[in-house]
């Protein structure tokens, strides 16, 4: 079957549209980061009874009261407690007494009955105009991106990840969807500007530098295993992409906070607003936990496909080897989180090393090292 050029054009148009909409969402996230969060925090503090607030500040302990890093969950200083959690022991349940439904709930009052967790979309609605705009724009952008990817698939009559351009655009689509998921589940508005920024950059580079016209696949790739193996690698790469962005945020924030605490640097209002290290660490861990099994499955599916195509399920082909290296490094990250002395910033270095290995695999090994895997399609 020949390539449907009309649909291919539609795909490219939607891809550019997604890029533009993501850029607008990025602006909205930036607006929230700069203007929306301080307003929310002030409203939160005003709603608490003074006694509760005093109690909270007392138990927050080491966290600097003036520039308390707002939590991922609800931006209020309560997440500062989680940072100094270990010092206080589990007793410091100085959490936001207010439900995510926003200020105005009765808080601090004794003996209220347990209530179910509030819904996510209500939380978005209550979080302010910037967040509402950003969330809506992100959703529309994702829709456009998904349409772009699927129309490309229909244009070429196969799964739309057969060359490097398609792989990158699909990867960023997965990253955007996964980002939206954690945005909503963990109310993580503050990471929006960084993750969406990274997605915009990646997608923009893909469109401008490695765009490949839609074309059929070489016979070696004509197998249903394409749908399975490359899909899994695309999914996990998109998730690891988000984890990497969060890891960079963690490292930047932690180093900044250490320098400020040691008096070596001035507090910077923008950097202060990066979510707390504990929150970022938790989100990164959860992202890797999602991505690692999918990567493992992708490597296995690749091995099954390699056996079908090349006669052996593992031959230390350069791309296979680097997929293995990436797997081992992410495994090291997971082990590091359970090893004394390797938690914290060191584990994030490992995680970023893993993502660097992933990028090396895509951009260096597939293009420059000859092997059975050279299907980049890049001229």
């Amino acid at each position, binding site marked *: 079957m020949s390539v449907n050029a009309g649909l291919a054009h539609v795909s490219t148009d939607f891809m550019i549209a997604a890029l533009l909409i993501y850029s607008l969402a990025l602006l909205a996230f930036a607006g929230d980061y700069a203007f929306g969060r301080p307003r929310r925090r002030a409203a939160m503090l005003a709603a608490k009874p003074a006694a509760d607030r005093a109690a909270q500040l007392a138990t927050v302990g080491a966290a600097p009261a003036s520039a308390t890093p707002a939590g991922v*969950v609800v931006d209020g200083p309560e997440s500062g407690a989680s940072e100094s959690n270990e010092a206080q022991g589990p007793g410091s349940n100085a959490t936001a007494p207010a439900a995510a439904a926003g200020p105005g709930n009765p808080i601090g009052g004794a003996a209220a009955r347990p209530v179910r967790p509030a819904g996510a979309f209500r939380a978005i609605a209550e979080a302010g105009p910037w967040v509402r705009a950003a969330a809506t724009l992100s959703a529309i952008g994702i829709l456009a991106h998904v349409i772009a990817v699927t129309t490309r698939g229909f244009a070429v009559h196969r799964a739309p990840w057969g060359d490097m351009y398609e792989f990158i655009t699909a990867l960023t689509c997965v990253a955007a969807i996964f980002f939206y998921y954690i945005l909503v589940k963990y109310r993580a508005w503050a990471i929006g500007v960084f993750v969406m920024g990274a997605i915009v950059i990646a997608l923009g580079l893909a469109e401008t530098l490695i765009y490949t016209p839609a074309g059929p696949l070489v016979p070696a790739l004509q*197998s249903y295993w394409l749908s399975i193996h490359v899909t899994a690698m695309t999914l996990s790469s998109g998730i690891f992409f988000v984890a990497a962005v969060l890891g960079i945020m963690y490292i930047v924030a932690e180093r900044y906070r250490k320098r400020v605490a040691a008096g070596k640097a001035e507090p910077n209002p923008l950097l202060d607003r990066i979510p707390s290290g504990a929150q970022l660490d938790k989100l990164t861990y959860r992202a890797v936990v999602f991505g690692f099994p999918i990567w493992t499955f992708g490597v296995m599916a690749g091995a099954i496909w390699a056996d079908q195509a090349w006669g052996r399920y593992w031959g230390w082909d350069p791309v296979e080897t680097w997929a293995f290296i990436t797997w081992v490094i992410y495994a090291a990250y997971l082990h590091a989180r359970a090893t004394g002395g390797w938690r914290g910033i060191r584990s994030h270095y490992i995680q970023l090393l893993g993502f660097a290995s992933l990028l090396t695999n895509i951009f260096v090994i597939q293009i420059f090292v000859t092997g059975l895997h050279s299907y980049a399609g890049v001229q």
Partner: protein
Amino acid sequence: MTDVHSTTSKAAPASEAADLDREATRPFGTGPAEAAESGSGGAPGGSATGAGWGRWAWRQLTSMRTALILLFLLALGSVPGSILPQQGSDPASVTQYFTSHPALAPWLNRLGLFNVFAAPWFAAIYILLFASLVGCVVPRTFKLVGSARTPPPRAPRNLTRLPQSVTYPSALPPDAAVDAAATVLGGQRFRLRRPAAGDAGHWLAAEKGYLREVGNLLFHLSLLGVLLSIALGGLFGYKADELVTEGQTFSDTTAQLAEFHPGRLVSGSDLAQFSLTLDKFTANYINSGASIGQPAEFNANVSYTTTPGGATKTDSIQVNHPLSVDSVKVYLIGHGYAPEFTVRGRGGVAYQEATPFIPANTNTMLSDGVVKAPSASLGFEGVFVPTAYMAGGTTLESIFPAANNPEVSLIGYSGNLGLNSGAPQSIYQLDTSQMTEIAGGPHLMTPGSTWTLPGKLGSITYDGTKQWVSLAITYDPGQIPALVCGILAIAGLLLSFFVRRRRVFVRALPGPDGVGSVVTVGGLTRTDASGGFEDEFANLAVDIADASSPSSPSSPSSPTAGPAASDDHQKPEPNNQSETGA
């Protein structure tokens, strides 16, 4: 993943309450002795005996930190294996590397960097890693079995010190409230523990999520299974290559196979006894559009027998569609052109064969080859182009990989081909050291033409063009076990990530004025990779509260003792209090 050796229980005041708290919150699945160990290990006991050293060394090996270092080494060690040419997959490139890096290559060779994945130092890394794995996993299996037998710990006295807790009033008396909680938790398949008869308090302990550790162990043991499956294939399996031209047949014997790489315990008589004929090979290329020249389809039609003299079957082998014969698989790996030549010398026909030419460029299929006719003392080096085009009028090039306009250009030699010495020669290379070049070359020929050589040396005719395929024949008994272990590994991974080991405790104290009760529900989870315990706890708390059918929401509660923070510990959204060192 939980670290067996990590410690999270902080120093607590020496009191029974604190003991209970510590018991309830200590790392799941470990006893107090293990909880005191740290990952870095200490001195090997008070004595310097061999057993002491051995134990210390073993503890070092099975520690998390060693595993981490070995993982790094494994990743690092694989890097040269992907960048430098490797003997196992591309020996020609290795030879080329020696010629282009004459000083560096021998040193790299001594370090084993041209065959990294078979090198002893690489084996040492993964053997150590798996030894560490086994040494860690086996004791944990016993601990898991033990912990599955022991009931959950008693409920701590002060549940508000747990990472998640909720307190609310209930109209039911304490024992009924706890019973109601037990019904809810039991319905959610928690393992329950009630106070023994004669125990004064009303409490309930519940635990769930043992599958998490099962998954963890399953994953690690499955990795070991994969390693053993690979070893199985390495011992009993074999790989072979063969090049077959259209019309040719070969049988699966070591003498007839171009290359044969047996496993350690494999001998020639273990080979499957099939024979295979290449009837026809078709290659289709895209002939228009942006992807012109790209291969669209390869199809090798073959006939084969599974036993000598058995019935002949036909099939087609394509890329991604190997032929399965008698537990052996035959794969289509490569293809090329084999122009047919007839060489005539003084004694008559000296050579008549379709000669495989090897592609130098897989995009255009421009190919090199050699014709050896020793009985006429003639040899030819040739370049074959499937679709000929004379670039600049002088250089022969191929502009399309299909045989639309085949031509061959030959340089002839006459003399001694060197075969009589008996030393092995590549059939794709001509040794011209004892030969003289024949005038008139390079001589361009189209199909059907003849080049009559000067000096009555003879003639060579280009009869036509056939195609050849290269096939890979593999037998790997470890393949299916490796697949099964891989699937089990993923199952174990998912279990260990998405099941959380958690404990929920309920305590009911008599309410104010002896009416009703005040119920406190507390919970903690040791590792919560996927998150969500906060939501689960919040929902459980609501279910338990509903089951205890409380009185009006506005009735005051007597706050239980605890820090100054509010008693009203509702957890409407996830809070990372539970990440105590995880």
